């Protein structure tokens, strides 16, 4: 079975808020000093899900696709090191400053071009923009069913058996192939590549495609094709300063807190 994993490298979302800066002129995040970008956490988990299916189904193959420039190349390297077989880098200035729709359009075109893909695994949302759209939009572009927010996915039944996280429980679903699955943190931890795997990754094939290779016109992708326009990116304003309870003992602090809450009519 041929599974595609879509991966994205992003500024580390664990960047402490104190180090988080936005350039208001460009509406872009200023990369924090000394904090390296990371593979979007949910994409790493999607890669883990794909690799487990590959390992359980002999003759299977995992291809990682990423859209962008240097950051995309790093995302591909990471997933190849985890165990994916090949990479596809969608690298074209025309792809820049797009939205979920244009990103999915390009990724779907690449998946179509590969020809024999049976499943696409994505993270449930990119941990930078948190939109949660690309996986579903790829499914719409390809005309495939999609199962989102998966905590487990295995082959079986109609094609794939997926357990999905709903608000107050878990849904068991089955989908025929080909299908898109988006994976959530409840799935578990992704494997950490060891040095031999990282070195082996350097020898794996990474193909580069531009808009023309995908049969796309520049007007369909990037800023030209985007349907949502980012007008402003800002940091939320903070409230008033915290009032810390004084006291020599936890008992004194606790008493002070409850007294304060009563005095302020919170309780």
């Amino acid at each position, binding site marked *: 079975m041929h599974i595609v994993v879509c991966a994205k490298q992003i500024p580390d979302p664990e960047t*402490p808020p104190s180090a988080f800066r936005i350039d208001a002129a460009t509406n872009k995040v200023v990369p924090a000093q000394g904090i390296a970008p990371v593979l979007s956490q949910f994409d790493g988990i999607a890669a883990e899900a794909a690799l487990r299916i590959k390992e359980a189904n002999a003759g299977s193959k995992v291809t990682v696709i990423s859209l962008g420039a240097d950051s995309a190349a790093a995302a591909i390297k990471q997933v190849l090191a985890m165990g994916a077989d090949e990479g596809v880098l969608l690298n074209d200035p025309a792809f820049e400053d797009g939205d979920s729709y244009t990103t999915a359009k390009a990724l779907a075109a690449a998946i179509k071009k590969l020809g024999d893909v049976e499943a696409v695994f994505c993270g449930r949302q990119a941990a930078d923009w948190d939109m949660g759209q690309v996986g579903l939009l790829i499914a719409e572009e390809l005309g495939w*069913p999609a199962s989102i927010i998966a905590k487990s996915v295995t082959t079986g039944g109609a094609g794939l058996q997926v357990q999905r996280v709903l608000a107050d429980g*878990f849904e068991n679903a089955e989908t*025929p192939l080909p299908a898109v699955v988006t994976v959530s943190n409840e799935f578990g931890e992704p494997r950490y590549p060891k040095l031999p795997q990282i070195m082996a990754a350097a020898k794996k094939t990474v193909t580069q495609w531009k808009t023309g290779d995908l049969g796309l016109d520049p007007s369909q992708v990037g800023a030209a094709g985007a349907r949502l326009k*980012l007008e402003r*990116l800002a940091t939320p304003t903070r409230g008033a300063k915290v*009032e810390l309870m004084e006291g020599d003992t936890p008992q004194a*602090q606790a008493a002070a807190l409850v007294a304060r809450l009563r005095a302020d009519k919170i309780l």
Partner: protein
Amino acid sequence: MARNILVVGELSGGQPTPTTLELLNGAAGLAAGGVVSVTLLGTGATAAAAAAAGAATAYVNDDATYDTFRAEQWLPALGAALDQANPDLVLIPQSASGREIGPRLSHRRNTAVAMDCISIVDEGGALKATRPAYGGNALATYSFATAPAMATVRSKSFDRATGPGASTTVPLPAAGESRTLVTGYEASVSEGLQIQDAPVVVSGGRGLGSAEGFQLIEALAAAIGTDKAAVGASRAAVDLGWYPPSQQVGLTGKVVSPDIYIAIAISGASQHLAGCSGAKVLIAVNRDPDANIWSFAKYGIVGDYKNVVPALIEEFKKG
């Protein structure tokens, strides 16, 4: 400039959900004389139309097949509603179903959706939608280059609409086929007060150090009163298996807006705060005096929860 607005509603127990009523209220504020309508799919839809406060028209189908959400069944019915209502804006709840409907419906209608919006305003005639990004570290505001504009909206972004519901109902088609099969459901939520409804939420985080730490969290909630307080958990705690995902508070968990949110041993990562910043009062207990939570809490105690929480339990028991 009059704006027709269609709200994709949801039913629970044969009634429009609270978020449906919130979106209807939001629609009323943006319609500026245009028509507000609602879609209701599933058992009791026709009867529920009268409770869809503020909607002029309800597009309905009572087919019980719609009760279990499968996107491939809902989407054609929603498309039929859009064909008739011809909205300028579609509002969808940011719910388990809504987060699937948004992107798929927008694609089928050759437009785009802004997800998990906390506000939608008219700025000089143009709609602007604002939503958290970068795990809650940032707020992103978007305009729409295509029509209709679509947005999934976070619960409690608007107050609930009140007043009369739809006077007209229009039938939608019954459910068709779905390639995806739903084969089962396992509820994971505990009995009693739900965190989305509780006036007080007490949450534990990674700093508890172990699953056993949640016993103290539960005891504190009980001391406050099980009719008032429910227990939540940070994503880190849930990922460690210390508490069920249904109790996770955060950007990828539940977003709660209680009167009081007590964060115990939670550092205050932005993605957690995105889930609880709607609380009227945020109280924190953390032994790290530099934790990010202090930038957002109103009251706090710097100390080890293992000592502080038992002391708080005693204080609450004194009543």
